[in-house]
């Protein structure tokens, strides 16, 4: 069944903090300078992992407000650091004043929330007394480890009081928040929403992905014939979203597509079956054709399985000439934050009419027939971008990003939708 066109979800404001730096400006500059944020792993006490990470500088130094002390963990510190950039809080305050604090929803994606706090609590408990295993007093489980912690923290930090939940579908989490926010606003549960993704480096993901043999000892090289797997990163990104109406326009989510692989817990379907459905449905909801799309920001993790499967789905839907690239070479794979990072990167591509290359990629794998960019492209009109995010459990989400005018504008290349 063809998906009906949706009303564009306007990104009124956004902010991004990754290994490239704090704030959208420095992230855009890092992209344009082809400067990776990845370095050989020196996280925490790790000395036995031969891998690269995209660590955000200064997270350890962040101090949470006194009233939110119980929420103190690396993930919420990064959330606060991210929220403080780009005057994003002022935009949220404006929306809160306009609609009321209970009418601005909060939907944050994360895969591991504040699990590092649990890791540290176990380490202390087992070291102190292996028999009694008493967890330390400083460990506040609901405010840190629980998956809801980051949405709860963001909602409290922004003084909002409406609907709020965390989506945790591994690496598609913070792409799916846009679909959830769209449905919530369309059903009248809120008038605007803060969506985003926050995921931080922790032992669980670093040693976990290592045990699955999908971390690369080399810097990650998406789509490269010699690619050896992922480099794990961390990031916090947020967007304030509202429905398109007669007075607002700008960069918007024009369509979303969500699907399940129904194939394997940690490997994608080899033909990219679920990826194809997600991209197709996103384009349908945007009321576009595959030929209208100008660029795909790939999930492109740099694992052999993901890049080959995604390449097949992209080629099947768009042919082999559409420009594509993964931006994981800059930030690493930021897991539950990957969706928001790459939506904001896609917004940069549209604003700047500029496409990033597949950083660190030298020779494209012969099995990937899609047009993987090895050099950045500029001076092209970029109107419509597809951003892909796929996760463990076969969870897929694709988004179409484009620019729209307010519904009354006569010049808009995207007039108002019917729904």
């Amino acid at each position: 069944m063809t998906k009906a066109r949706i009303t564009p979800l306007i990104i009124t404001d956004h902010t991004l903090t990754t290994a490239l730096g704090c704030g959208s400006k420095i992230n855009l500059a890092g992209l344009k300078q082809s400067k990776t944020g990845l370095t050989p792993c020196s996280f925490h006490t790790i000395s036995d992992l031969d891998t690269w990470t995209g660590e955000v500088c200064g997270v350890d130094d962040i101090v949470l407000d006194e009233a939110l002390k119980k929420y103190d963990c690396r993930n919420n510190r990064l959330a606060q650091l991210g929220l403080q950039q780009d005057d994003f809080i002022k935009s949220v305050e404006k929306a809160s004043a306009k609609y009321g604090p209970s009418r601005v929803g909060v939907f944050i994606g994360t895969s591991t929330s504040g699990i590092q706090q649990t890791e540290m609590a176990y380490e202390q408990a087992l070291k102190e007394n292996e028999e009694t295993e008493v967890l330390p007093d400083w460990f506040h489980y609901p405010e840190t480890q629980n998956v809801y912690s980051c949405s709860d923290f963001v909602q409290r930090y922004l003084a909002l009081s409406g609907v709020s939940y965390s989506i945790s579908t591994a690496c598609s989490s913070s792409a799916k928040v846009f679909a959830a926010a769209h449905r919530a606003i369309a059903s009248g549960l809120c008038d605007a929403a803060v969506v985003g993704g926050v995921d931080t480096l922790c032992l669980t993901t670093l040693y976990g992905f290592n045990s699955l043999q999908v971390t690369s000892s080399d810097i990650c090289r998406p789509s490269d014939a010699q690619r050896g797997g992922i480099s794990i990163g961390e990031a916090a990104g947020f967007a304030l979203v509202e429905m398109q109406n007669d007075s607002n326009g700008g960069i918007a989510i024009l369509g979303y597509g969500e699907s399940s692989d129904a194939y394997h817990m940690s490997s994608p379907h080899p033909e990219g079956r679920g990826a194809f459905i997600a991209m197709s449905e996103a384009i349908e909801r945007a009321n576009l054709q595959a030929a209208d799309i100008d660029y795909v920001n790939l999930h492109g993790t740099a694992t052999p399985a993901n890049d080959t499967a995604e390449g097949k789905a992209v080629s099947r839907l768009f042919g082999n000439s559409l420009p594509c690239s993964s931006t994981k070479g800059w930030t690493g794979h930021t897991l539950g934050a990957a969706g928001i990072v790459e939506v904001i990167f896609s917004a940069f591509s549209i604003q700047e009419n500029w496409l990033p290359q597949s950083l660190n990629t030298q020779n494209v794998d012969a099995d990937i027939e899609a047009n993987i960019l090895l050099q950045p492209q500029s001076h092209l009109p970029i109107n419509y971008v597809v951003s892909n995010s796929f996760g463990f459990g076969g969870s897929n989400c694709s988004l179409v990003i484009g620019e729209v005018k307010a519904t009354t504008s006569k010049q808009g290349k995207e007039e108002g939708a019917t729904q």
Partner: protein
Amino acid sequence: MTQVYIEAAGLVAPGLAGWKDSLATLRADADYQAVELERYKPLLLPPNERRRATELTRLAFRVAEDVVNNTPASDISQLAAVFSSSCGDHQIIDQISRALCQEQRMVSPTQFHNSVHNSAAGYWSIATGSQATSTSLSAGDHSFCMSLLEATASTAIEQQDTLLCSYDTQPPAPLSSKCYVGMPFASALILTPVKTANSLAQCSVELVENQTESSCTNPQIEALRTLNPAARCLPLLELLANNNSGSVYLKSTGSLCLKVSIATCQ
């Protein structure tokens, strides 16, 4: 206000082993007895996965299998899904945290891929072959309420039949000292955008300010409501079991309550 139809319900908790077997207790026709749940073997999981399935995945499958058994007409390979759990898989978190305390930090690859919050949802889509959209979420103690909102919005807007599963298990020690869950509990609903021959009730949801949350009418059931985040659905299940029309208020996030109105179809 969002309006959908409830096609079927599922329920699994100590002494409430399946929707049909729980009706008498929910209606206060029989006394509640906290009979411990026996280990469940999910019927839809392939044998390999069944052996390795954690307590949380087994509980999610048990309630999902209960609800689909109560609606023979549903094509489970086409169902969209919303899975909600406040805490996720305590057992796996405990095991991985312990492994990370060892000098070698050897994390089991199976445990790691089972650690994702959408693990049960992933196994469910593999078991049923459903490629439809599936979301896994948490809103702490308000997880059932938020997942009901996401599921009703998904059903009404996307015009698709949706399975809603809400579940939480008890954490092992030492996590249990930091996170209280009094008993395992799981509920499930199948929601449809249009009325069918099997519809139990029409269900409308609406957020309201300045309301207090509803309690259950039956004091024995009310005693269970705050033992587990997933058990916050009990006032709604009580209405459904009694085949009554009416409204209940579930505590939402922030300053809100969710008004859930039921108009019986039977």
